[in-house]
């Protein structure tokens, strides 16, 4: 791993972000719209008796953390698609860049996007709805870190699929996580899921993260078991995604399709 190659690719994307309105909208526009939408829904629901549940904290907390996951995944997949759209893939892989460095630069871009979106949403949530997500101290940080990891795993998996099937499969870069959202118990506890479905839900790191975060918000206690499961399932997901990406890259090279990725 060479830092200069990783940073070269990272800066290549940051050059685009600093002047591209569509890219900046992708980072900020939808998260802000979602925050406003769910914020108003929360304010409306707060008028009803929710049995002591702080609906603003639960729903807005969920939407903020869901967006962190979504940004982390999309950053990885879209970083790859940028090079496919610009037919630049060949140029970067005739340099000494390795597949591992390529993946690391993509996940670092995810980290940058998550930091930006997280900061903007946290400030807006505080300014508009008096929700201070930092009020929970360090309790939410390990859960947020798990969302970042799961976003990377999902992003690499989506990228490997696009490598295999070309841009006809690019919709997966923008929709993959919505497939797992109903199972991830983002806005409701996993206990409401049908029993057969619940088993699959608990295979996802995101389910353990959102369950754990709700426990922190509702009780103030730290759910070590949920965090442990989140890390374990994330480790498995990341391992499988990385292996799958390497496998697909090798297959594409064997089939001579690296130059025809479009």
């Amino acid at each position: 791993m060479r830092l200069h190659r990783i940073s070269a690719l990272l800066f290549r994307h940051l050059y685009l972000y600093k002047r591209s309105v569509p890219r900046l909208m992708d980072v900020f526009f939808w998260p802000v719209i979602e925050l406003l939408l769910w914020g108003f829904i929360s304010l409306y629901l707060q008028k009803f008796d929710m049995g002591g549940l702080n609906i603003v904290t639960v729903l807005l907390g969920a939407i903020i953390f869901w967006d962190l996951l979504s940004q982390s995944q999309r950053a990885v997949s879209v970083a790859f698609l940028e090079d496919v759209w610009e037919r630049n893939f060949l140029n970067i892989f005739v340099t000494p860049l390795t597949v591992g460095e390529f993946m690391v630069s993509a996940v670092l871009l995810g980290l940058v996007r998550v930091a930006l979106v997280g900061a903007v949403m946290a400030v807006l949530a505080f300014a508009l709805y008096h929700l201070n997500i930092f009020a929970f101290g360090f309790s939410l940080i390990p859960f947020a870190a798990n969302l970042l990891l799961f976003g990377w795993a999902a992003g690499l998996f989506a990228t490997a699929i696009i490598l295999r099937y070309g841009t006809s499969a690019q919709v997966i870069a923008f929709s993959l996580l919505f497939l797992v959202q109903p199972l991830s118990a983002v806005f409701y506890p996993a206990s409401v899921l049908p029993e057969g479905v619940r088993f699959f839900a608990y295979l996802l790191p995101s389910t353990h993260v959102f369950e754990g975060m709700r426990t922190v918000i509702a009780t103030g206690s730290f759910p070590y078991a949920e965090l442990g499961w989140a890390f374990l399932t994330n480790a498995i997901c990341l391992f499988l995604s990385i292996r799958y990406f390497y496998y697909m890259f090798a297959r594409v090279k064997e089939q001579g399709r690296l130059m025809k990725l479009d």
Partner: protein
Amino acid sequence: MIVRMPILQVQNLVKKFNGTTAVDGISFAIEEGKITGLLGPNGAGKTTTILMLLDLVTPTGGTISIFGKDMRHHREEILSKVNFSSPYVALPSNMKVWENLTTFARLYGVKDVKGKIEELVDFFDIRAFLPKMTATLSTGQLTRLNLTKALLNDPKLLFLDEPTASLDPDIADRTRTMLKRIQKERGVTILYTSHNMAEIDELCERVIFLQAGKIVDDGTPKELVIKYGRKDLNEVFLSIARNNNHASTQN
């Protein structure tokens, strides 16, 4: 007599795609400091060969040795001293020229990025384009930018895939002059593909003819013209391409 070491050595290189043989056991060596043309009709296996030499396509069989090292085990080391340019592989059009050059200089681990870009933009006379978006450059300007990118790492071996394709005769002539200058001043070894035989005759000291994935001839342009009893290299090309087609029809 000075014996030059081969900078690139290919032995029994094979590439099959779903049972179709694109490259069929070719072997050749290229000496340091020369411009060698890799010629052949469409589908002869030129691009597949170059892509295998750049580790972008995995060979089905055979070995590739560059700078005396096996590509499979020394990819990073080899590619840090190799570069590639093709009009069919564009640099990102949504980036400024200086951003593209900076990105690739960093990818190649150039120590003095700014100094190297300064040196090359003067060489290729593209300084005025540095703040422009790559998308706004003309075809000729893009060719010069591609060549600038290709020299960022001071390559010892350069693969040029039809670098003058789609250029008007004036710009194509300027590009050839530039390439001769690069080869002379920097001693770069160049493997060159083109369908312009006059260009090959002007630039290349040696040509390798590929047909249906096999090397059918190898020599200096002059030697091949004499051997085939033709007027020029263009006629040699037609002779090789059509003889084979004729043979295929008979079969």
